[in-house]
C-alpha cells in the first residue's frame, strides 16, 4: 500500500503525438458481450517505438483497429475513452475527417501480407493507389512513386517487379510491399500489427531492422503489436504489457525484461525457454487466459497469480508508479520486483 498512484496523464506534460485515454471496446454478439478492451491509456511520441505485448485475446489488435477506426461496427463498439492525435480527439470527429487521417497520417500494416493485399491488382497498382486517390496523381506518376517506395523498402528489381501480383512475391517481400504502401504518404504514426509473426526467423530480423531504419529516417512514431518478446527487443523503446483488455505494466524495455513489476509480465519472462535452462522443466503461467465475456472480478489476473491476495478478487488495481517512468497494475509490485525475473524456487 506504499505505492503512489500514477498521476493522471497529460496534465502537465507536453502534447504527445498520440494519446490514448481510457479506451474501451466491446463486441456485442449473439452469445453476449465480449469485453475486448477495458480502459487502456498510453501515449506515443515522435521517434518513439512502443511495443504492445500480449497474448491472443489480450485486446492489443482490437485497440489498434479502434485507433485506426477500422473496427467492424457492429459488432464492435467503442464504449468510452478518447484517442487524441495531435491534440484532436478522433472519436469526436466525423468520418470524413477520420478518413483524412487514416492511411495518410496514421497508417497500419498487418500480419499476413498475402491475405492483406488484393490478389487481383499488381503491387504497383496498390501502392500507387495512395497517390492516385489522395494526391490526385496520374497512373504514370503513381507507378513511379511506387517504384521509389519499393526501392526504399529494399525490394530488389523494383522497376521490373512493380507490375507483379502479390502471390508472386515471397513472404518477406510481401511484407515490405505492405510497409511501402503504408509509408507512401509519410504518416506520422505507423501501427504494425504482428508484422513478423507469419515470417521465418531470419526474415523477421530483416523486417524489424527495416522498420527501425525507416523510423530513424522519418522520425515517425511506431507502435509494434506483438506476442513475441524476442522480436521487439532490439527495436522498442518502451513496452506496454496487455492482459484481458487492460495494460498491466509499462516501462522501458530493459527494465521490463530485467525486472518485471507485474506478476503477469514476470510469468511471461519466466516462460521463455532459455539455453541455460537445459534439462529443466518449462514454467508456463498456470491456468488459461480468461473468457472475455466473463472477466474475473477485481484484478483479472488473480486466478493465475501466485502473489494474489483475497483483496485481489474485489479491488480493481489502477496503474501504480513503481519507478521512473514505470507503471504496474499490481499493489504488490515491490514484492514481484524483489523476486526477480525468474521466480526462484
Amino acid at each position, binding site marked *: 500500500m506504499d505505492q503512489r498512484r500514477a498521476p493522471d496523464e497529460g496534465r502537465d506534460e507536453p502534447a504527445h503525438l498520440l494519446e490514448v485515454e481510457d479506451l474501451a471496446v466491446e463486441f456485442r454478439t449473439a452469445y453476449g458481450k465480449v469485453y475486448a478492451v477495458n480502459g487502456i491509456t498510453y501515449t506515443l511520441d515522435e521517434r518513439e517505438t512502443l511495443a504492445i505485448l500480449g497474448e491472443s485475446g489480450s485486446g492489443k489488435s482490437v485497440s489498434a483497429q479502434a485507433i*485506426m477506426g*477500422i473496427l467492424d461496427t457492429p459488432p464492435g463498439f467503442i464504449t468510452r475513452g478518447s484517442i487524441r492525435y495531435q491534440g484532436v480527439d478522433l472519436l469526436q470527429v466525423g468520418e470524413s475527417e477520420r*478518413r*483524412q*487521417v*487514416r*492511411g*495518410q497520417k496514421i*497508417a*497500419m500494416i*498487418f500480419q*499476413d501480407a498475402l*491475405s*492483406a*493485399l*488484393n*490478389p*487481383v*491488382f*499488381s503491387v504497383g497498382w496498390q501502392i500507387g*493507389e*495512395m497517390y492516385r*486517390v*489522395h494526391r490526385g496523381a496520374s497512373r504514370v506518376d503513381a507507378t513511379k512513386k511506387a517504384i521509389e517506395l519499393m526501392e526504399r523498402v529494399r525490394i530488389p528489381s523494383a522497376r521490373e517487379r512493380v507490375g507483379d*501480383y502479390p*502471390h*508472386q512475391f515471397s513472404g518477406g517481400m510481401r511484407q515490405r510491399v*505492405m510497409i511501402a*504502401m503504408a509509408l507512401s504518404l509519410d504518416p506520422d504514426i505507423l501501427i504494425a500489427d504482428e508484422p513478423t509473426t507469419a515470417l521465418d526467423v531470419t526474415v523477421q530480423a530483416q523486417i524489424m531492422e527495416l522498420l527501425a531504419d525507416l523510423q530513424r529516417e522519418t522520425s515517425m512514431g511506431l507502435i509494434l503489436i506483438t506476442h513475441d518478446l524476442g522480436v521487439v527487443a532490439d527495436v522498442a523503446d518502451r513496452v506496454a504489457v496487455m492482459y484481458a483488455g487492460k495494460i498491466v505494466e509499462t516501462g522501458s524495455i530493459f527494465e521490463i525484461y530485467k525486472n518485471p513489476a507485474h506478476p503477469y509480465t514476470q510469468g511471461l519472462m519466466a516462460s521463455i525457454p532459455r539455453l541455460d535452462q537445459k534439462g529443466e522443466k518449462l514454467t508456463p503461467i498456470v491456468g488459461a487466459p480468461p473468457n472475455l465475456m466473463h472477466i474475473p472480478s477485481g484484478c483479472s489476473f488473480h486466478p493465475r497469480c501466485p502473489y494474489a491476495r483475497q483483496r485481489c478478487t474485489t479491488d480493481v488495481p489502477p496503474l501504480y508508479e513503481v519507478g521512473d517512468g514505470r507503471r504496474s497494475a499490481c499493489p504488490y509490485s515491490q514484492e514481484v520486483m524483489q523476486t526477480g525475473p525468474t521466480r526462484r524456487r
Partner: protein
Amino acid sequence: MIPVFFGATFIIFAMVFAIPGDPIRALSGDRPMAPGTVAALRDAYNLNDPLPVQYGKYLVGLTQGDFGQTFNGREVTEIMAERLPVTIKLSLMAFAFESILGILAGILAGLRRGAYLDSLVLVSTTFVVSIPIFVLGFLSQYVLGVELRWFPVAGIQDGLHSYVLPAMVLGSVSLAYIARLLRTSLVENLGSDYVRTATAKGLKRTRVVGRHTLRNSLIPVITFLGVDLGGLMGGAIITEGIFNIPGIGGAVFDATKSQENTVVVGIVTALVLVFMFANLVVDLLYAVLDPRIRYE
C-alpha cells in the same frame, strides 16, 4: 478439350446407333416404314459397317457440315440456319436480362446482407429456382399473356416486344442463380483481409467496395455467365416449345414430339459443340480475370 469433344459426340452417337435394338426403328420412332425405305436408310446411315467405322463416317460427315436429314430429306443444317437468327435474338435478350438484373440484385443483396432487401432477394431467388422452367413458362404465359394481355401468348413478330416474355422465362432461373452467386461472393470478399487493408488506407467505402471487392466477386459470376450458354440452350428448347417460337430449340422440341430422332441428334450435337466452345472461352477468360491462375 479434344478428348472431351470426341467423348461427348461419341456418347451421343453411340446412344442412338449402338444400343441393342434396331436403330432404324429408333430413328423412325413409331412410324411404319416400307422395307425398301428401311434398306435405303440402313445404307445411308452406314449401319452395315462396324461401329467404329460408323462413328468415323459420322464424324467425317460432321466436318463436312452434314448433320443429317429429316425424313423428308431436308438437311438439318438447313433447318438450323433458318432458325438460328430467332434463337440468337432470344438468347441475347435472355442473357442481357439475366446478367443485368442478376448482377444488380446480387450487389444489392450482398451489400445489405441481413437486411430486408437481402432476405427478399434470397427468398425470391430460391423460389424461382424451384419452379421448373416449363411450369414457369405456362404460368407467365397465362398470367401475363392471357390474363393481363401484356405480351403475345405465343409466336413471334417483328420487333422486340414478342421476345420479351420468352426471354424473361428463359433467363429467370439463371438470374436467380447469378444473384445468389454474386451475393455469396460479395459477402465473402467483404470479409476479406484486403478489404480491411483498403479501409486502413483511407479509401472511401464506395471505392473499397466498388473497385476492390467487385472485381474479385464478379469472377465466379462471369465464368458462370460463360457456361450458362449451355443452360440457355437447354432451356430454349422448352421455352421455344411453349411459346411456339420458330428457333433452333423449337426445332428440337417439334422433332422430339414427332420422333424425328435424326434431327434431334443432329441439332443437339451442334449445340453441344457450341457449349464446349463456350467452356473453352470461359477457361481462357478465367486466366484473364484472375492473375493467380495466370502465373501458375
